[in-house]
């Protein structure tokens, strides 16, 4: 039977009556495939195709998040603290919220409105969290496992990236509270019931055991024996001091020696970058099809080899087309990835120049603002290429990665070989 499929184009006249229906089905599929290719190789359609991608990246996240917020508020209401529900309505509610707003991206909206800023606070509030003003959210977002109702953040809190905050574990659901002016640095783990006092610093990699309280003004770091380690030598911060951080002063109070970008501008910039990147990453597919059609138009236009003249595709036509298509894919994807890296590297030098050592607080220099613009551009453009992986994943461990980091200014020592004749 397999041979029948393979050689249907050549031996159609020699096969039995029973197989004819199957061969027709096969031919219909082959022709549907040919028609799809023909659709993509029309130049006037490429714009529509890229526009669809743009809208998919910019409009769809808002529609999804709006629906998720409405469902959460109408169907679930508020998730209550207590022991973890294992069945019934409470368990369903917890599961539903986790499904509605999974992971840390707020259904992709965080990337569009700016991951660090007030819009994220507004969304968290709509989802049930209690959030103060001037919060600096992490670039990576926070995965609360659906427990937005059990999350409380005070004014002027600063978050580092890649922390895990879990108001719910296998045993209980318990509020995580972060006091005003506190800092939760990168890669921290806050288990259910954690309370971070006013102006406390939860340093890099801190582990807060279930129900742990960081006293106001204290400084902790890392994890040892199941909990974070207090830095004893560190003088206790004045816990009553004002909590306004340089970021809040610059971004929300506009007290900075440079023009602070507005949230509306960030939204427009991020949306354009996200839509453009999505369209850019989708481009190699139609480009490869059009390139193949340019190289060998015959199979698409006429189909049907073998002298039949019926206009349909035979297996041989599909193979003939694939023979050109596969190298075309390799070429267009490669050029696309190369272009992404070029956008990344050139925008670095245009926006940031060469970095300098020293303080770069939000209210002193415009560095952080420019860096955030660059991060948005670079992360959108070079991540999620070629089916979800980033461009750099294709060159990791290789000399090309060294070249990439060198082009961004890294000093990676070169072994010079000197041969004297």
């Amino acid at each position: 039977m397999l041979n029948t499929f393979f050689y249907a184009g050549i031996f159609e006249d020699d096969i039995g009556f029973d197989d004819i229906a199957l061969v027709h089905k096969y031919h219909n599929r082959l022709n549907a495939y040919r028609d799809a290719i023909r659709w993509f190789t029309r130049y006037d359609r490429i714009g529509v195709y890229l526009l669809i991608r743009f809208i998919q990246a910019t409009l769809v996240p808002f529609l999804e998040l709006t629906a998720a917020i409405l469902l959460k508020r109408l169907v679930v209401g508020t998730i209550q603290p207590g022991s973890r529900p294992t069945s019934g309505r409470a368990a369903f509610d917890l599961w539903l919220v986790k499904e509605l707003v999974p992971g840390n991206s707020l259904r992709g909206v965080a990337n569009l409105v700016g991951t660090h800023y007030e819009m994220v606070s507004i969304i968290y509030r709509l989802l049930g969290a209690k959030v103060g003003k001037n919060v600096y959210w992490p670039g990576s977002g926070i995965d609360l496992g659906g427990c937005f109702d059990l999350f409380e953040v005070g004014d002027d809190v600063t978050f580092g990236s890649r922390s895990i905050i879990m108001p719910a574990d296998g045993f209980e659901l318990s509020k995580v509270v972060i006091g005003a002016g506190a800092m939760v640095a990168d890669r921290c783990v806050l288990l259910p019931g954690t309370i971070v006092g006013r102006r406390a610093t939860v340093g890099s990699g801190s582990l807060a055991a279930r129900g742990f309280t960081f006293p106001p003004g204290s400084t902790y770091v890392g994890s040892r024996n199941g909990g974070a380690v207090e830095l004893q030598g560190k003088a206790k911060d004045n816990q009553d001091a004002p909590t306004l951080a340089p970021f809040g002063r610059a971004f929300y109070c506009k007290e900075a020696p440079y023009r602070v970008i507005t949230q509306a501008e960030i939204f427009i910039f991020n949306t354009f970058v996200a839509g453009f990147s999505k369209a850019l990453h989708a481009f190699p597919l139609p480009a490869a099809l059009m390139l193949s059609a340019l190289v060998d138009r015959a199979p698409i236009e006429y189909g049907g080899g073998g002298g039949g003249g019926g206009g349909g595709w035979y297996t041989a036509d599909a193979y003939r087309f694939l023979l050109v298509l596969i190298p075309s894919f390799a070429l267009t994807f490669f050029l696309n990835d190369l272009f992404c890296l070029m956008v990344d590297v050139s925008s670095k030098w245009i926006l940031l120049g060469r970095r300098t050592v020293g303080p770069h607080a939000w209210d002193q220099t415009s560095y952080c603002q420019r860096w955030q613009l660059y991060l948005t551009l670079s992360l959108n453009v070079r991540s999620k290429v070629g089916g979800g992986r980033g461009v750099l994943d294709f060159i990791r461990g290789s000399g090309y990665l060294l070249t990439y980091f060198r082009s961004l200014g890294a000093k990676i020592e070169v072994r010079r070989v000197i041969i004297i004749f």
Partner: protein
Amino acid sequence: MTACFFDPHTIQDRVLLYPTGGDPMMTEPDLVTIKEGAAIDEASLICHINSRGHFALNELTVGAGATMRSGSRLLSGASLEKYSTLLEHTLVFGGDVVPEGSTMQVRV
């Protein structure tokens, strides 16, 4: 007598970066110095520190022949001296120097 400098890119520089990826790899490459023979697995080189919003940049140095294994991190301003090794998940504080030839696993 003729001195001939080979193109550095044709003879590979014996520096290994992120063979299994990195999240993130380097956030400020222009402040990073990596000497010959260093190997960095899935570790992060982060030159910034954002202590309660007081953002600052410092340089990072990975010495010749030094190794950073998975999950190890140098905080802003730290450095690894020649042939030192950071084992998995080791965190080195800002300004600290890991001495020549030493191997560390400090899970604070």
